[in-house]
């Protein structure tokens, strides 16, 4: 057999020199230090000025939940929208490709804040107008629920970016994989599901993780369209207590805790899904 040919040890069987700071343990430590500093800072502030900071945390607690909820729901839907958009961008059907490309190019050219405002203020008016001209009362009395519109806006926008991540991830898988799957009798969707996507997921995990963190941060924009997220609750607190430094420092630290933890989870997922190619 041929195993012997392969497993010949390299000449001079010494372990390779280590690059300082490249050991995983070093990175973990650095990250824990960062979290410890941020959490320590929050605790310190609460201890120093319990009145302001603890009251603030209690006040914005429901905002934190909404920020987190909006982000998670929007992210899950973004994953689906991105998959559809990405497959559309790869479609050989000219109409599907055209529609997906139009969507991606259109959305990427408009600021997210403007999109959110459009969905909250303009979209319902269109629905109402449509309802009136069709004579459908349910539509003409349509009131947009703020959170749903905000999530819709986030999904539409992030779905476009996610489409491109999916497209690039799928295209990074060698063509032979699809051919091998198809030659075994799988149809396009079976080949995607069983062969291409499981491999593409590993490729796109880092950028998708980044998208989650970016989405978490950008979710603060929904405070403009009547969603009482962390940012909006912070603004409400500030307007009653008139203490911008304390409020916005604490809000920033709270966001930082959330993004650091998310980055950690993403990193853990990436390591878990590594495999040799």
């Amino acid at each position: 057999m041929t195993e012997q040919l392969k497993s010949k040890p390299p000449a001079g069987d010494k372990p390779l020199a280590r690059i300082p700071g490249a050991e995983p343990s070093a990175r973990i430590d650095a990250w824990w230090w960062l979290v410890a500093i941020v959490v320590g800072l929050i605790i310190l502030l609460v201890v120093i000025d319990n009145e302001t900071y603890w009251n603030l945390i209690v006040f914005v607690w429901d905002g934190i939940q909404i920020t987190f909820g909006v982000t998670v729901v929007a992210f899950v839907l973004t994953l689906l929208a991105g998959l559809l958009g990405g497959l559309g961008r790869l479609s050989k059907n000219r109409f599907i490709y055209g529609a997906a490309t139009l969507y991606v190019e259109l959305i990427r050219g408009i600021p997210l804040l403007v999109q959110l405002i459009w969905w909250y203020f303009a979209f319902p008016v269109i629905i109402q107008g449509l309802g009136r001209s069709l004579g459908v009362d349910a539509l003409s009395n349509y009131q947009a629920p703020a959170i749903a519109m905000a999530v819709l806006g986030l999904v539409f926008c992030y779905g476009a970016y996610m489409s491109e991540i999916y497209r690039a991830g799928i295209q990074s898988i060698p063509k032979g994989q699809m051919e091998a799957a198809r030659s075994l009798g799988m149809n396009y969707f079976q080949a995607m599901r069983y062969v291409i996507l499981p491999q593409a997921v590993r490729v796109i995990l880092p950028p998708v993780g980044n998208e989650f963190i970016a989405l978490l941060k950008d979710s603060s924009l929904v405070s403009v369209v009547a969603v009482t997220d962390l940012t909006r609750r912070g603004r409400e607190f500030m307007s009653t207590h008139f203490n911008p430094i304390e409020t916005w420092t604490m809000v920033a630290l709270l966001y930082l805790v959330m993004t650091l933890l998310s980055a950690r989870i993403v990193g853990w997922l990436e390591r878990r899904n590594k495999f040799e190619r």
Partner: protein
Amino acid sequence: MTNEPIIRIKNVHKYFGHVHALQGVSLDVSKGEVVVIVGPSGSGKSTLLRCINRLEEYDEGEIVVDGIPLDSAKNINEVRKEVGMVFQQFNLFPNMTVKENLTLAQRVIRKRTAEEAGEIADQLLIKVGIPEKSDAYPMQLSGGQQQRVAIARALAMSPKIMLFDEPTSALDPEMIKEVLDVMLALAQEGMTMVVVSHEMGFARNAANRAILMDAGQIVEEATPDILFTAPTHPRTKEFLSKVLH
């Protein structure tokens, strides 16, 4: 060998943009027959092979495999179930173990249970000589081992026809024989095979027919012994003079 051809290729044309890659190729392959296709690169031999299971679409003509014309998506998938394909670059699924490579399509397409599929996989790994690699990942195998796994993966679907697209061209010289041995055994069992390869030794030992393609056409076909030793067409002579040195 029966007379009814299991593969019928009739006047197939294929264009890549302005390149006329297949220029009216017709070829019948009988059940149990082993056909080896040789020819210079760019002669259309791989394209022809890939048309048989419709990995490549053709622009004109007709291909019927095992009585099924390649004309609808449903028929194409039916044909692909019956036609195994082995690629130059192996194309194993790198994120799955050898055994998972062998069982995936059995379970998804043939609807076999995990045990059934696993048993078939085990038997095929014995057949190709690497039962101990069942739990290894493709990247842990040598090229020759990977190609043998790829052959076993195709065989796991219990195909009636096997297509080989330059199966030894990406291998180190010392690994070619182990793959050819598996192919030879397969040929001796009566598998219908169409092989694009320049392995003259294999062709002489296993093939019923050898075909020379050039510029998208079949130039000459004969038994391997005659084609390789006493070709009649000048293009064949020229090609062989460059290959056999």
